[in-house]
């Protein structure tokens, strides 16, 4: 039975793969709407102008994917479940003493610690530069936020529970909400100023919204959108890394929800 099933799966797999390869080898690319993007100048980084200008709404969706993924990760690890008996059984079983708790993480040797601390400081600074220069140079909110999050991860890996750079999860939740709300509300402001959602307005009254040299003053709200995305990605990736490595949170969550249910 199983071998027949495998055979059918294998044959359909080959047919599918061959048809994909056939389609791919017959590709003819039509530049299409790209010509519009390349001939209308918004900011020097054209990729960024597509991301935050022409298709800013997609980027909003992308942000929300990350927000939802972090929320779902919280749910997986026990936040506001309707019934967490299963998690309780798993994480209070007597044989699982190998918890990675906040107080029990190992640390690396002094050499790594000596280098990791300054490196994390400079990584954060480089991340900030990447976020703020997103509209001119390659980079932008996502890359910068990821750099800052990896500074956090570096410091946590090197120093263990005594990590010098530490965001607690309440702070991260707020940071993420601030990032996403800023993006959403900047869009609403654009709707009231320009009549369209996520309209790029460059000045309010006579004040330019992003003071810059005159060739890139057209950036308008794009740097702020970059900052919003950066904050959100920083918070999201840190939370994800933190959740995937730390089980103490789960136990805390379980205890808290027990308190609520017993009230």
């Amino acid at each position: 039975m199983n071998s027949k099933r495998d055979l059918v799966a294998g044959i359909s797999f080959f047919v599918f793969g061959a048809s994909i390869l056939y389609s791919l080898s017959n590709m003819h690319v039509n530049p299409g709407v790209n010509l519009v993007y390349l001939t209308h100048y918004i900011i020097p980084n054209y990729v960024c102008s597509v991301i935050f200008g022409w298709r800013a709404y997609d980027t909003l969706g992308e942000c929300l994917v990350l927000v939802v993924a972090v929320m779902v990760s919280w749910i997986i690890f026990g936040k506001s479940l309707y019934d967490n008996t299963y998690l309780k059984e798993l994480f209070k079983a007597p044989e699982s003493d190998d918890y990675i708790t906040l107080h029990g993480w190992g640390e690396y040797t002094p050499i790594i610690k000596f280098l990791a601390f300054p490196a994390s400081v400079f990584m954060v600074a480089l991340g900030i530069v990447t976020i703020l220069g997103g509209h001119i140079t390659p980079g932008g909110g996502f890359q910068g936020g990821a750099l800052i999050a990896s500074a956090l991860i570096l410091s946590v890996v090197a120093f263990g529970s005594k990590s010098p750079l530490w965001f607690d999860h309440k702070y991260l939740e707020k940071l993420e909400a601030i990032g996403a709300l800023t993006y959403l509300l900047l869009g609403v402001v654009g709707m009231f100023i320009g009549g369209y959602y996520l309209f790029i307005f460059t000045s309010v009254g006579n004040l330019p919204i992003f003071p810059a040299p005159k060739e890139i003053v057209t950036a308008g709200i794009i740097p702020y959108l970059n900052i919003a995305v950066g904050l959100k990605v920083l918070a999201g990736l840190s939370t994800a890394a933190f959740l995937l490595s730390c089980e103490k949170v789960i136990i805390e969550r379980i205890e808290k929800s027990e308190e609520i249910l017993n009230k």
Partner: protein
Amino acid sequence: MDFQIVSFIASGILVIIGLYGVFFVDNILKKIIALDILGNGVNLVLITIGYNGGTIPIKLPNVPVDVFAKKSAYPLTQALVLTNIVIEASMLAVMLGVSIILYKKYKTLKSSVILKED
């Protein structure tokens, strides 16, 4: 244009490797890695669509707009790939989280054990 065809075929091979891994490898973690490979194959297709033998789509000072427009790569597909990378990453994070919980229960990563239908 030769380079483009080669790149398309390479991405097709990546997609096929990813599909193979998802369907025929009996390990959750390897399945997830295969999904990543599949996603990267699709990303490579997108990137290659935007390739036209030109430079990066960033206009430096003292380059006129019309000169720049002729030789730049297409920005649309790069933007799409940037969006897709984030989506892939968040999907993978959720899947890894679930597999941690299930590993805790079964002490194994075999998908024939963990994902058995009842």
